[in-house]
């Protein structure tokens, strides 16, 4: 970057910025115009349109009513279920994924286990949507294999005991299928970043394994752990296909409500649909901002 002739152009330009545009400067922007145009048309414009719609009534006048309507019991309920399910599967999947990542990195297992498990995880993390719902119906549905095994082997009817695949718990178990592999994939590099010397140093100073984890490894890992859990949260929060094909829209998630709003005006208020979408984007944006800062914090330690 520093040894050639081209960067000089940039330096000159940067120096001249605000005084007058350097000759030929605008040519540099030509290369990114298609990209900016595309993203404006298909990302910015749709988002903006929903944003504007959220502040308009049926006649197109400015209003805060749509946003106020978000605070009705139904809508708050939908957000609450979505948030709870995303949190539960993010924390649950995060924990399971972390323990597995721990096992394959510092757990002293043979190398092939690690290769196999990361490959599995790569597939499972991308195996979502309609087929995933089918798989869980065949597993834990009323006539699913696991349900039947429990019934015949242990005489335990899961559905009599109050379990249902088409409930909060069932959907959570299904989401976990793509949540924990995502944790394995993202946290493994962080665990690799724990230097052997740190462990040796703490052992030399007489620390127990627990003390090492509590006082050395965990503080270093915590930002990446939290960051990944937030990533998992967003992953579950935006999921639509899996939930719809599993519960048939029975569970009142935000994505499901938005989906039925697009199909027909079920809220009897288009503006409310836009406000719902806006609320989702705000929650996702907040979690992504937190993710970004945690990520930067964790990179401080894990850069070598």
């Amino acid at each position, binding site marked *: 970057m520093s040894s050639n002739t081209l960067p000089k152009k940039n330096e000159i330009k940067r120096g001249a910025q605000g005084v007058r545009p350097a000759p030929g400067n605008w040519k540099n922007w030509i290369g990114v115009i298609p990209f900016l145009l595309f993203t404006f048309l298909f990302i910015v414009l749709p988002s903006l349109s929903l944003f504007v719609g959220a502040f308009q009534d049926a006649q197109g006048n400015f209003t805060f009513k749509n946003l106020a309507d978000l605070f009705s019991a139904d809508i708050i309920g939908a957000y609450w279920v979505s948030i709870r399910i995303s949190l539960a599967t993010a924390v649950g999947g995060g924990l399971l994924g972390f323990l597995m990542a721990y096992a394959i990195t510092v*757990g002293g297992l043979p190398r092939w286990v690690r290769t196999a498990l990361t490959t599995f995880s790569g597939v499972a993390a991308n195996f979502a949507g*309609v087929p995933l719902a089918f798989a869980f119906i065949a597993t834990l549905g009323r006539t699913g294999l696991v349900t039947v095994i429990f019934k015949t082997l242990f005489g335990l009817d899961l559905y009599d005991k109050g379990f249902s695949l088409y409930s909060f718990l069932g959907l959570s178990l299904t989401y976990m299928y793509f949540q924990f592999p995502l944790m394995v994939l993202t946290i493994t590099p962080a665990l690799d970043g724990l230097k052997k010397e740190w462990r040796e140093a703490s052992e030399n100073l007489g620390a127990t394994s627990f003390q090492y984890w509590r006082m050395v490894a965990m503080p270093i890992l915590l930002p990446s752990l939290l960051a990944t859990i937030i990533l998992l949260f967003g992953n579950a929060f935006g999921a*639509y*296909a*899996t939930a719809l094909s599993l519960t048939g829209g029975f569970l009142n998630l935000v994505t499901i409500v938005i989906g039925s709003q697009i199909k027909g005006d079920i809220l009897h208020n288009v503006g409310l649909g836009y406000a719902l979408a806006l609320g989702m984007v705000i929650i996702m944006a907040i979690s992504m901002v937190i993710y970004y800062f945690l990520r930067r914090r964790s990179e401080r330690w894990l850069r070598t």
Partner: protein
Amino acid sequence: MKTNRLWSWFWVLIGVLYFLVPLIATFEFSLRAKKGVLSFLAYQRVFEDPQFYKTFLFSLEMGALTILVSILLVVPTAYWIRLRLPQMRSVVEFITMMPFVIPAIVLVFGLIRVFSGPPFFLTNTYIGTDALLIAGYTVLALPYMYRSVDNGLASIDVRSLTEAAQSLGAGWGTILLQVIIPNLRAAVLSGAFLTLATVIGEFTIASFLVGVNAFGPYMSLIGQNKTYESSSLAIISFLLTWAFMGLIQLLNRGGQQALSGAR
């Protein structure tokens, strides 16, 4: 140390069970279409359904076009930014992360609101609707396509290659097509396969734009009235995902893992 290792095996076992049990159950279920015996009847029925091929080919086509558009959009942009506009890098990276903030369901909501009315009227024609679908998929593919290509660019000396090509009299088109893209083969291909893995069974955007013409909505329709066939479809799409991921692993051994967004 011994207990430590047992503990490790225990968690790996839990993970493997979580991973395999639903697959075994689905496979077993898919074999039960004929009463009393195990058979591949459900698979046979799926493969005999003309709708299966029609929707699958449609989604494959949409996937291929999405890849084409993504490459045309991402490669020149990422290249240009490394070469001429390094100050724009964080801005473009930020834009490519937007699909993580805007879930697919919100994206399709916005796309319909903007492009189904004046002045675009894209959803009034088949071509327009397909184009909108491809645009939506390209947006979904942006984060990993961009990251994949940008990582690929980081591993080659873009500036020297460009200058060498220029001094031999090559224009921008030649540089991109004959110098940069061949050097990015692995990166572009792994991005492409991940795009394909995501797009082929995609449900959310497809169901609102093209309905049961696409493979994802078709699977969903089968799931509503044919139990065994839906299990065999799940196994088929699992094998597809496995194939795409295997290809990606082959392409970037030891490289970063490929991940797509929420579905």
